[in-house]
């Protein structure tokens, strides 16, 4: 029971700060789930992010479900996911009930223009932190560049490839040309 409560509170806190589509969450997740609580490794988080790209739903919600399930099975998964959803639900209920033009308030616009700067830094840190472990050789670098190109220019290219297709193709690429010694368990904790 105590552990379920801990799960709920942990993901409630994470749900409070999910700005910028979840990608900026990686440094926060690494900090809270790996370094502080040791509920999972950074490598596992990356795997969850990769899986989250090709399954429905918000990536951070997927991570909540994964970690909850890992700690306490299905009840854990439900409690963690509910914890993650609680704050966004309350905030939107308050906005829907009381504030009609919330997003137009100058103070709100200024605050979130500031937060977006922090989101940029957080995403940059996520990439730097994970680079060494994921882009392990030239083949992986090539794959990174191809996926980056196709994603960034998806709106300009004649055919835009859905993210889910890119992810599945990358998995197949790995199965065909990859190396095996990159899986999570062997690599130990964070080197910081």
């Amino acid at each position, binding site marked *: 029971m105590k552990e379920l409560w801990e799960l709920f509170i942990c993901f409630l806190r994470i749900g409070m700060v999910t700005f910028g*589509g979840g990608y900026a969450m990686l440094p926060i997740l690494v*900090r809270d789930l790996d370094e502080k609580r040791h509920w999972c490794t950074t490598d596992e988080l990356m795997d969850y992010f990769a899986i989250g790209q090709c399954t429905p739903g*918000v990536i951070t919600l997927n991570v909540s479900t994964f970690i909850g*399930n890992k700690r306490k099975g299905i009840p854990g998964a439900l409690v963690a996911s509910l914890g993650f959803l609680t704050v966004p639900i309350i905030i939107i209920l308050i906005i829907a009930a009381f504030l009609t033009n919330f997003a137009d308030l100058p103070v709100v616009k200024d605050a979130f223009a500031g937060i977006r700067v922090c989101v940029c830094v957080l995403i940059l840190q996520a990439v730097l932190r994970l680079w060494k472990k994921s882009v392990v050789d030239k083949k992986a670098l090539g794959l990174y560049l191809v996926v980056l190109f196709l994603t960034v220019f998806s709106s300009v290219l004649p055919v835009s490839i859905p993210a889910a297709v890119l992810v599945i193709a990358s998995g197949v690429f790995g199965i065909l040309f990859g190396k095996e010694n990159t899986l999570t368990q062997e690599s130990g904790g964070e080197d910081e």
Partner: protein
Amino acid sequence: MMTLLRLVYEFFKAGLFSIGGGLATLPFLYEMSDHTGWFTHTDIADMIAVSESTPGAIGINMATYAGYKTSGILGGFCATVGLAMPSIIIILIVAHFLNKFRDSRYVARAFYGLRPASIAMISAAGISVVKITMFNLPAFETSHLITDLFSWKAWILGILIFIGEKKLKWHPIVFIAIAAAAGIVFHFAQ
């Protein structure tokens, strides 16, 4: 009661097919708006703005909002749970198989490809945020002055946060709060 069930059902459907995060929900929301009349297209546009300025993803926020508008607080809750349910169920299934096949060579190799792809998509998301946050393309296009291209206040704050995180090792939430305060004090939205 029927409305509540319908809310759960409609948002369950949207949740099931919106692969790859928040914005993927949008086409389903427009369709739902036409079908049910629970909210208008303008509501969706407003909700995009609200979602950019609150924690939580657009799909989740829209579910809460539409649910509240149709049947109050309980409605908001039901619609949101409906939207999240497919994602939770699918991840539980994936987690089950992942544990079973953890040691499989094929899973290990698949992740060799999945990780660079994942980082690439995170980078792409970063580039799109940087484009609207650190640069001022509209101003540059009208004046063609290189000094107008960069949002100088944003660069200064960004560099300070980057150095601060490295040196101070505070929790990222602290830096989000500092960034919000700096945004308000120095009027970042202009």
